[in-house]
């Protein structure tokens, strides 16, 4: 039995989610219209646009990328071409896309993963494909064309049921089709009951009216997407006890609490402003913490301030990777607290009994003697004793904006070298002064090679081994002295990093990352109120492969051309995140070059 349609549509989903899904968006209400036909308890619902205009837009996008890569995309190789080939093949040449599919295919299709039980049961595909239909006769013609031989042989039988025409495969693992005036459902025969329900009845509680579904939908930061996904892991964990008896699990797990802790997730993909491939993910938090399912306490999670995007003015424009967040002190504090509150009960109440059950009493005693509280206390006291600041004051002074940057820069001696920067907003001038002084004191204790003058610690460095090896391989005369690493604090900042970066951070010019076209442009697509940002400034790599770059001496022109072409495809990439008590949002963007 042919499964080409299901396979092709699955591939289409994958393609659209990865690339095409980010294209030209539709309002989520339209995109998720098929959710009205699906029961609320499905584990996965993923929808994608299927209108012809969308396919053409995908093809245009692929052609755009292919053109930049120097590999033009033939029209036959696009989405439309692929669908056409699949249709001709499936119908043994009786139909093509234009006549056999486009005529009835509606604006969206949805992939449904009905229940986690199918996952554990194994066997054939646990997926159903629900497609909107605009012309039922044409749709039935399509189905009958691809089932022509099967219908003749009796491998597929036709059944009319409450307004639906069902093409049922006799082999329960093979594809069956159901068609109504609005829908086509492609399903493995094992899901016959569910397919009939979708095709012939209106669910009492459709997914579209589910609170979880709508919460997940609402949690997405955008209004329009080309592809949408909804994931309800609760079903998976609710089903676990059926296939994994609690007696088989050596630890006590409350699967109900575990399922409650999962929450629901949604995903959306779109193309913003014609060149920003965007993928959003939203996590609606569960009612309880996952740790509580194992009898452990819930971790404490504090709030974090929003990013001040202008903070990137302290980072030079040659930064290749830039990471920005806030409340580093609170985050470290929470991490330490949670390691203790969760880690110690885990060790002593769960892990140690497990080890004893395995008959390893000596190992259990060793583990039992360990304490995360001891570890974190040691770490905090170490900081207090060496730096000279109470730990709470140290955490407090790190609670403003925080950024790190990494640059790959041309180097006349080793072709390339690296600069780095860590910069904190200074919230405590007195404390930051003590911090720098304490670090200097510790370096003194280690008798490190450093100087400390006027509040600036200077540590000489050597260039990274990898870059030196490059120079050695080419028998280039090696100067291994790298830029000094500086540690200092101004009234505004606490800064650690390579001398050029630190000096720039303390006295920024217009040539900052914040002023670059890439950052300025991308920042309009960052999540509003984002609390963390990772930004890749691909344009910062251009000078490395320029004709007058040191690397040109050893990198062949053809190699550099290919690299330049590859990095020229995109200007930048970013990830922003925003977390509240109820939800966590992520946005990933990849901005194509103009």
């Amino acid at each position, binding site marked *: 039995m042919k499964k080409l349609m299901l396979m092709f549509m699955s591939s289409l989903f994958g393609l659209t989610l990865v690339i095409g899904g980010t294209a030209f968006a539709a309002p989520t209400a339209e995109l998720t219209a098929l959710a009205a036909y699906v029961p609320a308890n499905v584990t996965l619902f993923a929808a994608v646009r299927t209108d012809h205009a969308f396919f053409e837009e995908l093809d245009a996008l692929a052609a755009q990328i292919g053109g930049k890569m120097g590999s033009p995309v033939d029209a036959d190789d696009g989405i439309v071409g692929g669908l056409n080939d699949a249709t001709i093949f499936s119908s043994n040449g009786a139909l093509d896309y234009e006549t056999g599919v486009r005529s009835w295919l509606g604006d969206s299709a949805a992939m449904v993963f009905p229940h986690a039980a199918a996952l554990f049961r194994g066997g054939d595909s646990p997926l159903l494909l629900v497609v909107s239909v605009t012309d039922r006769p044409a749709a039935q013609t399509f189905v009958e064309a691809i089932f022509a031989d099967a219908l003749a042989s009796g491998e597929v039988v036709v059944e009319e049921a409450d307004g639906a025409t069902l093409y049922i495969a006799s082999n329960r693992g093979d594809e069956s089709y159901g068609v109504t005036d609005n829908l086509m459902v492609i399903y493995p025969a094992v899901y016959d009951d569910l397919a009939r329900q979708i095709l012939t009845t209106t669910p009492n509680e459709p997914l579209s009216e589910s609170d979880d579904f709508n919460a997940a939908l609402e949690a997405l930061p955008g209004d329009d997407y080309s592809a949408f996904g909804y994931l309800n892991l609760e079903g998976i964990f609710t089903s676990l006890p059926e296939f994994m008896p609690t007696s088989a699990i050596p630890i006590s797990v409350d699967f109900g609490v575990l399922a409650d802790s999962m929450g629901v997730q949604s995903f959306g993909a779109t193309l913003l402003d014609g060149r920003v491939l965007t993928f959003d993910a939203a996590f609606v938090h569960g009612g309880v913490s996952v740790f509580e399912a194992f009898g452990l306490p819930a971790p404490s999670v504090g709030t974090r301030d929003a990013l001040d995007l202008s903070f990137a003015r302290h980072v030079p424009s040659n930064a290749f990777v830039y990471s920005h967040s806030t409340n580093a002190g609170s985050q470290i504090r929470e991490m330490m607290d949670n390691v203790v509150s969760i880690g110690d009960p885990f060790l002593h109440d769960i892990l140690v009994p497990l080890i004893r059950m395995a008959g390893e009493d000596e190992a259990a005693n060793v583990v039992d003697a360990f304490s995360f509280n001891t570890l974190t206390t*040691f770490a905090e*006291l*170490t900081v207090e004793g*060496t730096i000279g600041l109470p730990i709470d004051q140290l955490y407090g002074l790190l609670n403003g904006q925080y950024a790190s940057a990494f640059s790959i820069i041309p180097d006349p001696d080793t072709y390339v070298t690296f600069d780095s920067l860590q910069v904190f907003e200074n919230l405590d001038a007195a404390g930051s002064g003590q911090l720098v002084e304490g670090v200097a004191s510790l370096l003194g204790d*280690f*008798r490190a090679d450093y100087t400390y003058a006027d509040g600036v610690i200077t540590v000489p460095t050597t260039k990274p081994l990898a870059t030196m090896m490059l120079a050695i391989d080419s028998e280039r005369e090696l100067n291994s002295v790298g830029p000094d690493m500086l540690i200092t604090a101004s009234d505004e900042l606490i800064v650690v990093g390579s001398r050029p970066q630190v000096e720039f951070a303390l006295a920024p010019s217009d040539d900052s990352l914040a002023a670059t076209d890439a950052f300025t442009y991308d920042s309009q697509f960052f999540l509003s109120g984002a609390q963390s940002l990772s930004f890749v400034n691909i344009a910062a790599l251009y000078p490395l492969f320029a004709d007058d770059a040191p690397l040109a001496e050893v990198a062949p022109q053809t190699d550099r051309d290919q690299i330049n072409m590859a990095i020229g495809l995109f200007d930048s990439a970013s990830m922003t995140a925003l977390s509240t008590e109820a939800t966590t949002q992520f946005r990933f963007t990849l901005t194509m070059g103009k």
Partner: protein
Amino acid sequence: MTKKGLLGLLTGVLLAGLLGLVDTAPVRADAPPVSDLAALARYYPSETALFATFDISEQVFDDLDGLLGVLRTSIPDLIPSDANSRDLVDELAGSGFLTTIRPWVGNYIAAGILDVESLMGSQPSVLVAIEITGRDAARDFLDLSMSNASSRYVESEVRGYTLFVDTSFQQMNYLLGDDILFISNNLDYLETTIPSGDFAKLSDETIFQETLGLLTAPGYYGVFYMDTSALLSVTAQDEFGDDFPMMELYQSMVDADIHQTFGVTVLDGHTLTLDYANNIGSYENFASVLLGDDAVLPDPSAYPPVDGTFARYLPARSQLVIQGTALGSQISGMFDIFTLYGNIFQQMMADELYGYGMGLSEIPFLDSDWGGLAQGWSTVTFAGLTGLNLNDEVLSWMTGDFALFLDLIAVESDLTLSLDMGFITQNTDSAAVNNVQEKMASAAERYGLVNTTETHGGGSALVLPQLVRVLFPPDFMVSKDVIDATPELDVMIGVSDDVFVAGSRPGVEYALNPSGESLADTAAYTSAVESAFLPGSQSIFYIGFDALAEALRETDLAGMSRDMAEVMYILGAVESATISTVSHSTAHSAGRLTLTLAQR
């Protein structure tokens, strides 16, 4: 001279000398002063790298017999009533030493290496000088010995000396004077140099006089002098050659002009004493080679001398005590020493690695400053345990006296015995010391340790009962209840106006509130302070054997086995043992090891 006769001569005089090394001399007020003892150095050339001289007078035998008498009072079973040193030497040396040799031998014997380069050859150039009291008697002895010898000797007169040349083997030549007998394999030195007297003499060398002058006891029974730099020079050249990478280091030590001396004597009639002293002629050169041109080795003479009365904070039962001053500076100095040894090791490793085409930097930590690593990680670890900055908050005020103590004690619980150990130092800054106690209490709280506070005398103590008890394994010989019921296992951090003390409960309680007899009140310790420790000692190490024996009895360890009973019996002969050291300057330092016999 027969070989037996020769051996008898040398063995006898050397035995007498060596016995002098352990001589207790209770019947003689003083051993001879260094100047007398080293008088024979006038016969040795100025470049002599090894020189030893001993008192072999009749008095040595009397002194040794006195020693046996003292020992007999403590361990009569091991010292027969008729035992005496003369019979012992005679028996060991043979040849009728007492009747044929002793009568004409004088008070001193010396031995030295004439040519340091010869040490690397098959026959080092040795000169033995024996003071004699009767030339004729000595001549008779030599005649008798030579007549029975396998070698053939030719006799001649040289400027008042009689020279006997070993024509067979050229090994044992003799030069006999009115009051001196020389034995040497260096014929030229006997035949020409000594008779002429025209040579630069070791006794006139300033460095020799200066080095021996560092021996501070009134007199010695034996003195050993060594030109360490010269010895290093020839050994390095011989072993490794000029290309050896350590040659720079060796050469630096040669240039540093290092000389050392050892002296053996008896103090206060019953304290066996070994003194040693170092004389570094060019300390700056030594430091620069080891630590770099700009570096300066720590100046150990900067430490003040220990206060002998500091032992008032230790109970009379104290058995092992290490006392010093300025622990803060000493620990910093210890890190400098790590750097020094690290540099030496790195120089050694650099050449080894070069042979494999590797550099020091390719092996983690190998090219690091070892002192820095030790200091840095000590700082980090100490901070992690206490929340205190090791240097700024702790070492900085540890400028006074300090003591480490370790005692075996009996306890009332079924544990029966325990170790009382700890550390005491002078409270030089009450605010800083209180800060230490407070932060340690805070750290204990944060670690979740049980901690309480107690008052003892005018001081307070933080009590940490779990610290030691957690070290006992579950299958220890006594139950956890017994461990818990042994308060002596409590760890305490105490502070009074006078001291900071950390250790187990008994010692800490005593230091905070000294009551009853203290170590400083005991006769043994008083004796050690008065006569055993070097004057101005900056560090002392003391073992009280009486107290140790008492503890062994109280804890019933003494009765555990026959061997232990024998050990106890022998321990009864010793009152105390000490080591003390002092640095007078960066160039001059001295040390003293003593063993004081009990006088019952």
